[in-house]
């Protein structure tokens, strides 16, 4: 196995129309066209998808685990940001 020369790609699959693409995993491929085909073979073999995106992993900027507290901590005690204070009239369904 000599995949060291091939860049890593992240794969996003849309499982059906109307839903968003969801991250499914990653793979190695020499270029975008082949990454798309490899994604088809690796992640949609069991009819999982109707659409595929591949993105070079290097193009993704990720938040760092070290920044977890400054990034996400302050939201924890602000319960008023959640829409849980509304009274729902009777008879409203699907909410």
């Amino acid at each position, binding site marked *: 196995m000599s995949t060291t020369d*091939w860049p890593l790609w992240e794969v996003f699959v849309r499982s059906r129309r109307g839903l968003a693409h969801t991250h499914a995993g990653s793979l190695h491929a020499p270029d975008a066209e*082949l990454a798309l*085909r490899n994604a088809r073979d690796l992640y949609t073999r069991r009819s999982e998808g109707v659409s595929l995106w591949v993105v070079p992993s290097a193009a993704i900027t990720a938040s760092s685990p070290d920044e977890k507290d400054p990034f996400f901590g302050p939201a924890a005690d602000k319960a008023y940001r959640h829409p849980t204070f509304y009274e729902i009239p009777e008879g409203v369904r699907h909410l």
Partner: protein
Amino acid sequence: MSPAHAAALALGDDALILSHRLGEWAGRAPVLEEEVALANIALDLLGQARALLSLVGDEDELAYLRDERAFRNVQLVEQPCEDFAATVARQLLFSTYQHALYGQLAGADGPFTPLAAKAVKETAYHRDHAEQWTLRLGDGTAESHERMRRAVEGLWRFTGELFQPVEGLPEIDWQALRATWTERVTDVLERATLAVPTGPQSAAWAAGAGRQGVHTEPFGRMLAEMQHLHRSHPGATW
């Protein structure tokens, strides 16, 4: 055997034998992603083989208990193709043929129409896969170009047999099939900076041989490996 059965056997054996040859890459393909791709293609072909052989008789008996001379596959699909470039070249030559053949069968009204309608979608992907790799290897490095060139030249003499009319397929226009195949293969090879071989497409003694049950030397060894488990343990299940 009726002509329709003979045709199902010929097409079914093509799919079965190529499926086994592609399956040989499992565990030893150049990269993991490509191994899955080749296994996927092999499974598509195995599905086609099962459907076709079931029309003729018991699929297991046909696959595992026939001797070499009873197989009707073309010689192209039985070649070992141990170099990845050779496997790519064979995929290009064969999937282009199979796609055009199933395309004609799907458009006609015969016993193979429903089966061909499904298979034509599968083989369209096989063609695309082979084309992508032919372009990258042919127009890649000096080494990959040379291996691809050697592979296409080496397999060229097995391509004439593809267009020998198969009894039991009256709906096929073999001349049109050959024209379509030549046009598509030429297009891909040219874009991959590879020359279309000028040599003969069959040796004089070999024309149509696979379809008559005459096979090349590596086929016997392949068959021994494919059949030995079933023959050693008849009726084994798990």
